């Protein structure tokens, strides 16, 4: 058994405004192995985005232990985080290639190498030929592909995704799920994927962490034993249904 890449034990987060306190996360405990794709699933307001921001180093946590990186997979918080959000958030005034290069520019990585890598990544996400286009010339799904390429350009070890397909229509979303699995296999990154889609969480994840709202707490954490590559017909299989039901139950919807 190798060391986990991410280790959380009893992580809590409290928001204070004036005298009132709001418990955003209580007792988050789970491990993520290197190269895993973990789904964080839960309703809005359950603190899953907060958890992601803590992992990104944007917010401190208030209690418990959080460790990212291991002896075999060292982690540099400044350059090993890639982020994808619900909105593509591409810069309108930059062409797609220049958009993908943004993290490399911020980190001051060698330009020529980064450009070559950005082009490879655009090909990987299925946007070969769109390098010189502006964001407004691409559809929402294509913009999100570019955002995924951007999150990978500086070769981070950890990619954090906050409902990246939440704004897409259902069919595009299914397609992007398959694409993400392909990209994940090829890029070999550890991914933490936040979603409120139960079937999306099961379909993508090697593991699912379930969070419930009001009060925010961690409800469960279990591996998904479905083989990869995953195919859409697995969604109608018996084990898939059982995993989904387990999550529905935890969220009090059954």
């Amino acid at each position: 058994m190798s060391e986990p890449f991410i280790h959380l034990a009893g992580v809590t987060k409290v928001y204070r405004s004036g005298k009132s306190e709001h418990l955003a996360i209580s007792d988050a405990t789970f491990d993520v192995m290197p190269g895993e794709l973990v789904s964080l699933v839960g309703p809005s307001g359950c603190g899953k985005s907060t958890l992601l921001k803590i992992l990104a180093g944007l917010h401190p946590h208030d209690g418990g232990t959080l460790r990212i990186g291991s002896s075999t997979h060292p982690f540099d918080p400044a350059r090993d985080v890639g982020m994808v959000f619900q909105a593509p958030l591409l810069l309108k005034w930059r062409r797609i290639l220049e958009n993908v290069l943004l993290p490399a520019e911020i980190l001051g990585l060698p330009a020529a190498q980064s450009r070559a890598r950005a082009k490879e990544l655009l090909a990987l996400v299925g946007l070969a030929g769109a390098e010189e286009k502006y964001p407004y010339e691409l559809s929402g799904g294509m913009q999100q592909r570019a955002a995924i390429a951007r999150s990978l350009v500086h070769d981070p070890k950890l990619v954090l995704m906050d409902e990246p397909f939440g704004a897409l229509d259902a069919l595009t979303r299914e397609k992007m799920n398959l694409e993400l699995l392909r990209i994940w296999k090829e890029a070999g990154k550890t991914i933490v994927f936040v979603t409120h889609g139960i079937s999306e969480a099961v379909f993508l994840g090697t593991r699912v962490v379930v969070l419930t709202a009001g009060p925010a707490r961690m409800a469960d954490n279990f591996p998904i034993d479905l083989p990869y590559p995953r195919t859409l017909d697995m969604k109608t299989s018996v084990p898939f249904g059982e995993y989904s039901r387990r999550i529905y139950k935890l969220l009090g919807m059954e």
Partner: protein
Amino acid sequence: MNETIQRYALAILAHIALVLAWYLFVKLGNVPKFVMPSPAATLDALLAPNYNWWGNIAVTGTEIFAGYFLALVVGIALAMVFTWSKALEAFFMPLLVSLNMIPKVALGPLIIVWFKYGVFPNTLMAFSICVFPILLTTARGLREIEPELLDLVRSLKGSRWQLFAKIQLPGALPYIFSGMKVAAILAVAGAIVGEFLGSDKGLGYLMLQVQVTLDTPAMFMAVIMITLIGMVLYGIVLALERWLVVKDARIDA
């Protein structure tokens, strides 16, 4: 492409039609020259030797362009200072909104008291009237940054300067240009009002001179010249916007 040519053709046609309507109105209505001169009589005013057209155009043009450029530098610089310091913004922004309410024309007599009359006080008039729209839209543009984009830069431990240079400033450009377009129109008005209030040269000064002698063609010509200066300024701003701002991001003003 065809559509573009068609649009330009229509624009030119509309201007020609206006001049034609003007001509017909004067001709058919037998309108006296001192009430409304014909287009030809207006053009003739350019030949009058003692009006020093080019000199006056140069003076008014200088006031407009200098006032505008000064407003651009000061307005954008102040807006940048505000984005770097929240405290400064909180202190000065409400004050600037109040100052913006002053009718800048009302400052004219004061400016004359302080700086006598001439090119400099008129430049100040143009400046004072167009600095606010530039400052306010630039400040707004610099503030409009998506929080997640901020997260993205912070997750990479990007510096304040990188955030500004790579995201805030280019993101604010469409706003800056929308302010610049409004200001271009105001700058012309500011300079002319300044010349009306007190000056010894410039197109506004010339208008007051020929008004006394009821040389209406010359007044018409002066208005046309002022308009043309304004159009040159506006045209430069539009061209810069086309060059610097991606089509999708432009804001109409």
